[in-house]
């Protein structure tokens, strides 16, 4: 039997920010334990401490009831602590077997032995995964299963998964959940970091909610309803009424249309023969996971890359929020320039041709307040913003000038409830004001909540088109197929 892994009264501070304050966490073997929290609540810090990537300022990491010191990732691996980070940790050019060989402490390895160990681990856990293909040629879901098999082959008895479902589609999420339940049944402690309540409901036994570096709720998942958990995460949620949107006239002329569009970017996922139209005031969602050509489609629609074949017509100004927010910021300049970027040509920002820094700062400060960007310091380097705040800034900057067309890629990905709500309200309000919105997302919930029409993108082609109501049914069908309890879409 494995011992429980725990944090005992752990504090960790970065500069002036207290990321964790006297936090107690305990993960029992054989259970799926969810760690919930907003962006910046301290989830990732806690996981890094447990995985040996960081050391606490005070308090201890405990295995069973013995305090242990994890000086490095290797030390944690030897203790049986496996980590599946959010962005993937495998080396794309190598196969899974080679990736495992890389992590072995011994200098001399026999490929056959390593391969056999990995195959055994995969088989014992029922993971079906290709061991001999370079990792980058596997799908994202396969890569993730591969990482799981790798962790098991390293002897992991505790699995830490950081936001594992953020890049998977509904069927893949379902598969992963089944796998995690099976791990738990075999006596492994599964720890799931997430900010999706529905996911917690679907597979977790127990949960701990972190809020601003403290534990705000802890217990068995059956004891709490969604409102309790949400409140523990963010405090009292303001009830938002979605802004009323005028109906879109069928006769309205599309302002953005792609006709037989073929294009590719550098991510090896081209789009093929895409036809789509977006009318003023309409929100069209394109659902697809990483590798389905979403980025190529977004950049094509936004006019960043040129088409190989086909035509694109766009009337008026085009706002674009790329998937990687940093692409839309100026990392080397202070934040105010990123904030005022689109309006820099306005006369108020210059006198005798020279820029007025004070005006730009004032504009930036105003934008930060309106879109809750923290810290609201216009002179900070843009690279210092956290992901969520960068997203709020880019979204606010792009949408506040009422563009004709808005192309939004992964609009709320990685945002906490409060911020995501804010962004969704902003998108609805923007569409209500007459902007044609093209939303690219991997998140069914988001598409359902926002879109008038939903297109499904698979391997670069549009394979399905639904109205909002039809899509509701389609998603429920996927969810109803689930054998496990809970049964809600993620």
């Amino acid at each position, binding site marked *: 039997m494995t011992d429980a892994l725990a944090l005992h009264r752990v504090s960790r501070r*970065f500069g002036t920010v207290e990321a964790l304050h006297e936090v107690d966490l305990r993960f029992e073997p054989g259970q799926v334990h969810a760690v919930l929290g907003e962006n910046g609540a301290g989830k990732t810090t806690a996981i890094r401490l447990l995985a040996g990537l960081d050391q606490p300022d005070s308090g201890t990491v405990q295995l069973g009831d013995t305090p242990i010191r994890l000086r490095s990732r290797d030390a944690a691996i030897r203790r049986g602590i496996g980590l599946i980070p959010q962005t993937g940790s495998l080396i794309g050019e190598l196969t899974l077997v080679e990736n495992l060989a890389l992590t072995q402490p011994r200098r001399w390895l026999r490929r056959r032995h390593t391969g056999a160990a990995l195959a055994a681990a995969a088989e014992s856990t029922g993971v079906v995964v290709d061991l001999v293909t370079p990792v980058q040629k596997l799908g994202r879901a396969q890569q993730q299963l591969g990482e799981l098999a790798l962790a098991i082959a390293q002897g992991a008895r505790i699995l830490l998964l950081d936001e594992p479902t953020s890049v998977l589609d509904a069927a893949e999420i379902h598969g992963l959940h089944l796998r995690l339940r099976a791990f738990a049944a075999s006596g492994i402690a599964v720890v799931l970091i997430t900010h999706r309540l529905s996911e917690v409901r679907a597979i977790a036994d127990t949960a701990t909610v972190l809020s601003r570096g403290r534990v705000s709720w802890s217990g068995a998942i059956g004891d709490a309803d969604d409102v309790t958990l949400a409140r523990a995460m963010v405090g009292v949620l303001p009830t938002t009424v979605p802004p009323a949107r005028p109906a879109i006239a069928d006769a309205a002329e599309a302002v953005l249309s792609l006709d037989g569009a073929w294009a590719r970017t550098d991510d090896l996922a081209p789009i093929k023969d895409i036809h789509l139209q977006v009318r003023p005031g309409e929100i069209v969602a394109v659902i697809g996971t990483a590798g389905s050509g979403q980025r190529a489609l977004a950049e094509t629609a936004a006019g*960043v890359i040129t088409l190989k074949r086909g035509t694109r017509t766009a009337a008026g100004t085009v706002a674009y929020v790329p998937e990687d927010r940093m*692409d*839309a910021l*100026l*990392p*080397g*300049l202070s934040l105010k*320039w990123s904030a005022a*970027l*689109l309006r*820099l*040509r306005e006369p108020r*920002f*210059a006198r*005798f*041709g*020279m*820029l007025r820094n004070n005006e730009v700062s004032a504009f930036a400060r105003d934008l930060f307040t309106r879109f809750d960007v923290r810290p609201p310091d216009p002179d900070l*380097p843009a*690279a*210092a*913003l*956290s*992901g969520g705040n960068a997203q709020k800034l880019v979204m606010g900057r792009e949408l506040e000038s009422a563009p004709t067309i808005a192309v939004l890629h992964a609009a709320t990905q990685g945002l906490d409830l409060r911020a995501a709500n804010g962004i969704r309200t902003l998108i609805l309000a923007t569409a209500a004001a007459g902007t044609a919105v093209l939303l690219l997302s991997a998140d069914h919930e988001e598409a359902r909540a926002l879109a008038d029409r939903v297109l499904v993108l698979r391997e670069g082609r549009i394979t399905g088109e639904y109205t909002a109501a039809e899509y509701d049914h389609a998603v429920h069908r996927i969810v109803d197929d689930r054998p496990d309890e809970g049964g809600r879409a993620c």
Partner: protein
Amino acid sequence: MLTIRGLAAGPLRPYLVSTLCVVGGFAVVALVVAATDGDLTVAVTGWMHGAFGTPYATAQTIAYATPLVLIALGSSPALRAGVIVVGAEGQVITGAILAAALAISPLGELPAIVALPIGAAGGILGGAVWSMIPAVPLLRWRVNEILSGLMANYLAIQLLAYLLRTSMRDPEGHSTPRGADLPDPSRIPFLPLPGRLTAGVVVVLALVVVGIWWHRSRAARVLDIFAESRWLAGRLDLSPARAILGTTAVSGAAAGLAGWMQVAGVDGRLTPGVAGGIGFTGLVVAVLGRSRPVPIVVAGLIMASLTTGSNGIQLLSPGTPASIGAVTQGVLLLAVAMALALTQRNRARRGAADD
């Protein structure tokens, strides 16, 4: 300790790092002087004497700094846009060739008020055209502008050598290849001061003022944005073609103008050594001055004083070789490059830590 730490982490950090690097650089030079049995105080005194000790020396230093400052000013838009322009040496030569060709043509005999602008325009044109050799392939095929810029320098040197042996050779004939003397109306008048200061200094001073204005202008900021992200610059209506060709042409024009000042001012005729390394030294000045106009002037004067001052060192401390000036220039460049690398790495690390 606390204050130093606070200072080191604060907004003044880049300045602190730069200062430390430059001080470290001078320490290395002091070691070199000591290693050659020189006396440091004597060397410094000699350097000050040689660079600024007499009105004549001061004028020489300023005269030497003038083309450096001009080239550095001209290259700063390109450097801000992220285009590394290293072709100034060749552009000085082609600017000088065209300016000299116009001056020894009948146009050069016109009154000075016409002949001088014609010569200046020739220099500007010659430099700007030559700067397109690296710029167009960079824009069209993404050819590395550093490599093609350096190649273009060799082309210019060989072109000059060819012309000085053939069509532009002084008809009066000399054993060394050189061009004909420029007619008087085409020569830039000397200022009524000791030394060999020409009116070109006034032109460069005016350009420094323009540079100070431009440095804070919207156009300059848009070029910064271009260096960070071409897509975002495109949303401010700056196309890669305009950014790359425009800034490179400005750098070429400035270098060509410097070429005109050399041929029509100091030298009075086209010679094989018309550029004499000022293209490269000008680029060093731009890097030292971090593409800002006032620091560029200071850096230009320092670089020039290292050349003029080394004669003074020789005078007072015969054991120390005159090439100590060149050594100092090299060490200084290394120190500044290090300071830049350090501050940038720190900025990147600070950004990553807050992620």
